[in-house]
């Protein structure tokens, strides 16, 4: 469903050129979920944003559902891929009701049955009629993230990109959102790509996990292998240790240099 081949993303040019992602390749089957883990600045969000079409990729090829994606995406191709952002406080327009937020994509793509689509999307994410005409400031963080997920689902995408969808939420709400995403993936047959620095969150959703550092995809592993510590790259081992808790003796300075 998603085919990423030798993709590089650069910012700036000349002397200030930054290569945020280098030669990243992976493939996700339809209905699968892949997680990208890594510390801040490892390029995992950059790769996701390039797949979403929010930033251009300098080299390589991105294909979604068998179609190669140019840097300037045609409008109808947007329906295939939707994204849920990290911060549910920043990803909803502060002066628009849930209803307006959900109606906008329907208007953009000239879809019919706006009323039914909005109610379906709300039901899918576990929100009711009483939430429909509220403003974001009248919703809790978890409810906002549900609205953001509903907005992504309303175009009936095949691919859902998740950019740390739970990191801004408190722990009890995190579990609710993760369960919701698991259920949606099963019910709607969504293909998912998730970015997080939290291995537990990634392992909850994803079957396969890619470890990224300094713009490179170091290793592909599975959720079970990761849970049992069967990883090959020294950086992956360090990341695993870091996630179990801080242990100064385990810090291996500059393993990727």
């Amino acid at each position, binding site marked *: 469903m998603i085919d990423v081949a030798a993709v590089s993303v650069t910012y700036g040019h000349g002397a200030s050129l930054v290569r945020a992602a280098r030669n990243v390749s992976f493939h996700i089957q339809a209905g699968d979920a892949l997680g990208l883990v890594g510390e801040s600045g490892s390029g995992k969000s950059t790769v996701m944003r390039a797949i979403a079409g929010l930033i251009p990729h300098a080299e390589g090829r991105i294909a979604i559902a068998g179609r190669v994606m140019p840097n300037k995406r045609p409008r109808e191709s947007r329906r295939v891929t939707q994204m849920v952002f990290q911060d549910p406080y920043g990803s909803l327009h502060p002066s628009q009701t849930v209803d307006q937020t959900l109606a906008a*994509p329907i208007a953009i793509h000239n879809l019919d049955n706006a009323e039914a689509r909005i109610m379906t999307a709300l039901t899918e994410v576990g929100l009711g009629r009483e939430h429909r005409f509220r403003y974001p400031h009248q919703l809790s963080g978890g409810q906002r993230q549900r609205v953001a997920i509903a907005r992504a689902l309303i175009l009936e995408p095949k691919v859902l990109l998740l950019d740390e969808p739970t990191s801004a939420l408190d722990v009890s709400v995190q579990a609710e959102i993760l369960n919701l995403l698991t259920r949606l993936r099963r019910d709607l047959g969504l293909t998912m790509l998730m970015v997080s620095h939290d291995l537990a969150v990634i392992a909850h959703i994803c079957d396969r996990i890619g470890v990224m550092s300094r713009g490179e995809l170091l290793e592909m592993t599975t959720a079970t292998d990761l849970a049992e510590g069967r990883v090959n790259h020294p950086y992956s081992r360090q990341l695993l240790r870091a996630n179990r808790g801080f242990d100064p003796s385990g810090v291996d300075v500059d393993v990727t240099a």
Partner: protein
Amino acid sequence: MSTPLRVGAPTGWRGWLLDPAPASRNQARLGRWYRAWLAFHRNGLAMTGLVIVAALVLAAIFAPLLADRELAFHQVLEDRLQDFSWLHPFGTDELGRDIYARVVFGSRITLTIVGLVSIIVLPVGLGIGLPAGYFGGWIDSVLMRITDIFLAFPRLVLALAFAAALGPGIENAVIAISLTAWPPYARLARAETMTRRHAEFIEAAQLQGASSFRILLTQIVPLCLPSVIIRLTLDMAGIILTAAGLGFLGLGAQPPLPEWGAMVSTGRAVLLDQWWVATIPGTAIFIVSLGFNLLGDGLRDLSEARSG
């Protein structure tokens, strides 16, 4: 199924407006307006400003009911420069016209100028500022250099030059004021846009396939508009004073139109002996300018309370 009644919650139409779970688009919108009104209502100075501005609008609409049009324009030379009386509450001017009636009818001219300037300045300011802030790059450079050029001229001097070149009159005064008034709005709209163009809800709209035009219109304009309108309200005093200044210098509304600035100008000659001829229209200018300033301050407090 009955909805559970919250203890102490307002009922009736107020309860409907303040319902945290509105049942329709209009209820949500009206509820939002009502909440804003409740906050605005508590601000005494802002309410004073609102009352003054409302009085100006009502005076302009109902001028023929409040005063006799005949008295405002008809010259009665034997009644010239009369003191306050029951017939002429604010006396008469040098041509025997009733000053009260002229001030009341002058509100129409003031409101026309203020309204026309707003209608020109808002779209021009937003039209230049929004694309500059949103697209950045060379579009921003070109649009902002044009803005800088207009910003470099002193306001009254440019307005004077235009009024002199185009000929005196209300329409030309409006054009002259608008030409000098729009650049700050373009800058404001640009700044507001730049702080929001990388917001996640803008990226979400881009991901949905929204065109730049749609994003500007539906996502960014609603966020820029409050601060632009507040700025415009606070600028109203300056616009009214500029219009009055042009009238005073004979480049605005022409006789016999009862423009307040022109009325001050004619009263100048008799200021020491018949002080009311210049003072009454001057007071009208002062009160209306003050009203717009108080209203603008109140709106700013409201928007800061909401965002903060």
